[in-house]
């Protein structure tokens, strides 16, 4: 069992994250915890340019996490039935994959 705050995500390939939820609903717990973990010092330190915005609504809509990557890709996670750890690991794996791709590209360019 892993604690949600222990998962380290490298936010370098991420441009912006929008977390939308309606606090009066009952299924927003994991999304709120996700927002809390994302705002941690160490994760924020990996990328200072990444803007994290929280959109608080009251229209009964489901909780949503919208991640915009630097290369134009978009990741939408509907947090109604996801746990915090799942969302963090999903984001983490995608970030790591993009990091590897960028490293390979820069290695190919250099020689």
């Amino acid at each position, binding site marked *: 069992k892993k604690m949600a705050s222990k998962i380290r995500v490298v936010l370098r390939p991420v441009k912006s994250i929008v977390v939308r939820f309606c606090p009066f609903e009952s299924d927003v717990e994991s999304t709120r915890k996700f927002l809390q973990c994302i705002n*941690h010092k160490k994760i924020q330190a990996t990328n200072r340019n990444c803007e*994290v915005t929280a959109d608080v609504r009251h229209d009964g809509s489901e909780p949503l996490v919208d991640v915009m990557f630097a290369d134009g890709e978009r990741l939408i996670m509907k947090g109604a039935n996801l746990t915090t750890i799942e969302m963090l690991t999903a984001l983490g794996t995608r970030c790591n994959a993009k990091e590897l791709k960028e490293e390979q590209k820069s290695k190919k360019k250099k020689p």
Partner: protein
Amino acid sequence: KMAALSGLTPWRRGWLPALQLVRRGSKAVTRHWKAMHFQRQKLMAVTEYLAPRPAVPPRCLGPRRETPQEDNGYARLLRRQVEEAFRDNRMIAICQYNSMPDEDVVLMRHYLRKHNIQVKFVLNEIVRPVLSQSKYKNLLPLFVARNILLVSPEAKVREMLRVLKGVPQVNLLGACIDDTILSRQGVENFAKLPPLEAAQGQTVGALALLPSQTSSLLQRGSAHLTALLDQHIRQLQTGETGSAAEPPPAQSSG
């Protein structure tokens, strides 16, 4: 082996055994594990600790009923404080707190204190039972993850929103102003409202509009008659010629 005791004193100061057993050149206290003497080994083996086994294995016993946790005095104090906060303050805003650097926390507290708004860090497990027993049951789903309460006896919503806009890590979830539960949208609308006196003046004006319309309608007939009479008098005065000042045609005035 022991040195011979001599004299009245039982022990001599600075006593060294005359014969010292030395074997293989290592001293008594070594840095490595030294093998014990065989007699000592036997003694240790015989006197090993044996854990006492319960007569009935715990699996066979029935399920243990959990003793209810006794009420912690500290928890009671915190609950009382939360109840007081809900009673004494007109405005209570609930915000989600994501970790912020400490200086920013202090700055935010300072700015809010200027407007007489207090910042309280609360624990969900304390607030939830308090809310479920009071009339604020609809605030229950808000208390998940870390929250802070901004309490104030006056409802200075505009200043609070301004301060919170400068702090991105604190997200306003909802508020309870004058025993009315508002969402974030409601709070923003509340901030845009004009002050109470202006709102009262607007209401009075709207209410007084209809009777004034009625009175003007009623007076329209006689006002029309007086206007016509005035015009006729003026005509008579300007046209000096003694045309018969006939009495103006009697108009049936309403």
